[in-house]
């Protein structure tokens, strides 16, 4: 599906707002037909990156390339990208039809064509019959669809979506995630999607770009990022994790909680401080005497598919997911298989690790 062609490229892009680096020397490329998600906490620079591509901001340093051509200084209205804004930014003085037709009218498309193309879009987003409604009179989900239709009707090369589902309730959000993904695959358009919701990113993306403090932490497929987080930040942000201080004794041997563990990672040197990441679902709860570590259950909560327990193992409080519940105060043992012990370099400056 994804072509190996760099449709958009950011080269060493830095953006400074009032003396503060919003982005520091970002390098990123997006391939045609790819669904790329920029993921990170608020203020990490993901929206700024999107706005640079949309043309709403100009980088302080570096270049933005589109199909290999420099578009750094091209204004937004000359870029072949369209944006779905955070709060939709529908024009309140126009009705649904005129909102969607806005770009086409600017482009002086003939009236008949406008009618046809807007009609097709309304069908795509399931809003046939809503043409005359005022934008204000729509529900959040409907407004969302109009915003998407308004952008897509211009047949952009890339659709930029800035937290488009943020204002919707949970149920609607789940539905829209699937719908968006479907649409992207059906239309074959490149999507650049910004969110702070890791689950959304994991569900929809071909590629996830994890960002923090204006730097890219990791780029990869959802699976690789989940399974092989490059540092503790990524690990923590993508799913829940237990992060422990540890010392790498040598390849495939790591020390934490005063005990040596076997692992599969190599190349961290000898006797070096590292972070160890344990996913809650990777920790097994066993009988007190059978575990690698012994502990006491401090709390247990039913979470729908599993129980979440906090187990005090002396050196740390471990969050553990399990289908079997142990009561509070129970003595238990925990163990982890070597493959599930993820070793990471100690996290230093935000831009240090990922460069």
């Amino acid at each position, binding site marked *: 599906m994804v072509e190996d062609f760099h449709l958009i490229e950011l080269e060493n892009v830095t953006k400074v707002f009032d003396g503060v680096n919003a982005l520091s020397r970002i390098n990123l490329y997006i391939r045609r037909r790819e669904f790329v998600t920029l993921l990170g906490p608020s203020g990490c620079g993901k929206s700024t990156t999107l706005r640079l591509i*949309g*043309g*709403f901001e100009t980088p302080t340093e570096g270049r933005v390339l589109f199909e290999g051509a420099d578009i750094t200084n091209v*204004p*937004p*209205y000359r870029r072949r*990208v*369209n*944006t779905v*804004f*955070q*709060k939709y*930014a529908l*024009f*309140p*003085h126009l009705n649904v039809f005129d909102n969607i037709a*806005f*770009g086409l009218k*600017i*482009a002086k498309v003939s009236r008949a064509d406008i009618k046809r193309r807007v009609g097709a879009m309304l069908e795509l987003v399931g809003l046939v019959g809503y043409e005359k409604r*005022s934008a204000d*009179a729509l529900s959040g989900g409907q407004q969302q669809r109009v915003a998407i239709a*308004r*952008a897509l009707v*211009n047949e952009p090369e890339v659709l930029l979506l800035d937290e488009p589902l943020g204002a919707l309730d949970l149920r609607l959000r789940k539905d829209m995630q699937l719908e968006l993904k479907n649409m992207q695959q059906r239309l074959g358009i490149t999507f650049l999607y910004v969110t702070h919701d890791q689950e959304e990113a994991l569900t929809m993306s071909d590629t996830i770009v994890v960002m923090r403090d204006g730097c890219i932490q990791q780029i990869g497929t959802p699976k690789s990022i989940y399974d092989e987080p490059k540092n503790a930040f990524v690990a923590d942000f993508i799913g829940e994790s237990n992060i422990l201080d540890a010392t790498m004794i040598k390849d495939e041997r790591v020390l934490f909680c005063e005990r040596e563990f076997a692992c599969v990672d190599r190349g961290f040197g000898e006797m070096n401080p590292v972070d160890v990441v344990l996913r809650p679902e990777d920790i097994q709860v066993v009988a007190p005497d059978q575990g690698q570590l012994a502990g006491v259950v401090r709390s247990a909560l039913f979470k729908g598919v599993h129980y979440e327990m906090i187990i005090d193992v002396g050196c740390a409080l471990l969050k553990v997911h399990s289908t079997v519940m142990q009561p509070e105060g129970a003595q238990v043992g925990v163990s982890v298989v070597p493959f599930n012990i993820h070793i990471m370099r100690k996290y230093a400056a935000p831009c240090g690790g990922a460069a």
Partner: protein
Amino acid sequence: MVMKRLRWVYIALVLVFLYAPIVVLIAYSFNASETRAVWGGLSLRWYAELFRDKGIMDALYVTVSVALLATMAATVLGTLAAIGIHSMRSGMRAVFMNVTNLPMLTPDIVTGVSLMALFIFAKLPRGYGTMLLAHITFDTPYVIFSVLPRLKRMNKHLYEAALDLGATPSRALVRVILPEISPGMVTGALLAFTMSLDDFVISYFTSVRTANLSVLIYSMTRRKVPPTINALSAIMFVTVLSLLLLVNRRDARSDKSKLKGA
């Protein structure tokens, strides 16, 4: 129940106080006699004479034309300024807002004398032109203060959305921002127009060659006010009354139709 009736009486009394002089003026406008001391029977004489009185008609023309021109200029200047101020960094914005606040806080008389000093310093003959300049100056802040809240309330991405959809900045301005802030512009323009129509103090200091109605009426009250002024008051009152009623009715109706539509 007694309380309620007392309320009505109270409101009615205040209204009587507010309307008494206006009613008196209108009553006198139908007095055939020249002096107020004598009731000479009903007559429309003063209305006929009003339109023949060149002084009053000139002043009326000056008042309305200055108000219209000043309102137009202030609306353009103020709307642009509001858009500009809205997109400024906070430091610069504070400077502009303070300068905008200044004429609103300055007493009219100080604005008047300081503009007079400026025009004399610049050797501009004080007449129609200087009066217009002065009116634009005190009208513009009203437009800015009416437009800015609309801009603030506007989704800040609307402009970008228009650019994103291919509109150049100027088209985005005309097709998206202006429609969005137009209610604020209308409010501002109405305020400015009213202020202009009603102004006496600033016009008094900034124009000697040309008198608007206020200045003319002032100079008349110092001599002898002709009964034609009563007729003028009556006409102005009825005009304002019907305009306000009209606007009110239209508002009520559009509210109703909105309810129906939703």
